[in-house]
């Protein structure tokens, strides 16, 4: 197996040391004033529509899955050999019209 440089623990530690040495915890008062200046300019927050960003976030999260599902169903339905003359919704409604008790409880064939 080929030796991986990035898995070399010594190099990793050295790079980590260099990375964390960039860290600085400057706590200047000036920064605080500048931040608060920008916050005050932004004004008080409107909380009435707090759910909108969350809803938007949710919509974007499920959007790819919805598109994929829609595409799959489209392909599935176009490739299915459906009889256009047959009343599928009517047949389904008639089927569900009067279910018997054994059908409702899944006891068919128990006699």
């Amino acid at each position, binding site marked *: 197996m080929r030796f991986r440089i*990035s898995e070399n623990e010594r190099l990793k530690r050295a790079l980590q040391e260099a990375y964390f040495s960039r860290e600085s915890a400057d706590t200047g008062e000036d920064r605080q004033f500048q931040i608060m200046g920008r916050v005050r300019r932004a004004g008080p*927050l409107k909380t009435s529509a707090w759910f909108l960003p969350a809803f938007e976030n949710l919509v974007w999260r499920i959007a790819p899955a919805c598109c994929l599902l829609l595409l799959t169903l489209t392909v599935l339905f176009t490739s299915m050999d459906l009889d256009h003359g047959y009343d599928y919704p009517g047949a389904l409604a008639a089927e569900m019209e009067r279910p018997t008790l054994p059908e409702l409880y899944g006891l068919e064939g128990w006699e």
Partner: protein
Amino acid sequence: MKDHSLGASDEDIVRQVLDGNVDVFDSLVKRHRVLVSKIVTRHVPSRDAEETIQDAFVRAYLSLPTFTGKGDFRKWLSSIAVRTCYDYWRKAYRSMEIPMSTMTEKHRHWLEEVLSGQSIESRREAGLKSEAKELLGYALGKLSAEDRMVLEIVYLEGLSVKETANLLGWSTANVKVRSFRSRRKLERLLRGMRRQGKGG
């Protein structure tokens, strides 16, 4: 400035800010500015850190209505700070403002020394610490904003895939793929540097 919220929890302060008391946000800045400074200065060059820290706090302020109060406020704020750094890099890459550092013989020398097993202490004595920083800057500069953030958080900070996904707001699968890809790119970069050194 008088601290109106001495002893109040972060959640209480958030509630007061949401009720329209903007000045109380000052207490949250005071409490957490060290945390945000540390995060930002690790990810962003020092010349732009100041502006990015301000951006992170303003973004946190504007996002306060989305803070549900169920989780830890520090974690929520850390995630905002990390995402602000990520946005900084996306913007920087788009406008091509990243100064590209070049690799010299001393950087290759440093890499060879580390790989050959010279101790960190002796390297420090030799004054080669800046080489490590420059080499890291060079390698990270060659990566995309996404790969860069993932490599920094997973490989250098040692956070788990799940923690990284929470910080960046990505799926765990995306973090796994990015992490693998960025490590491979780093590998290629380091190999290339060694080859150049041996060839030249």
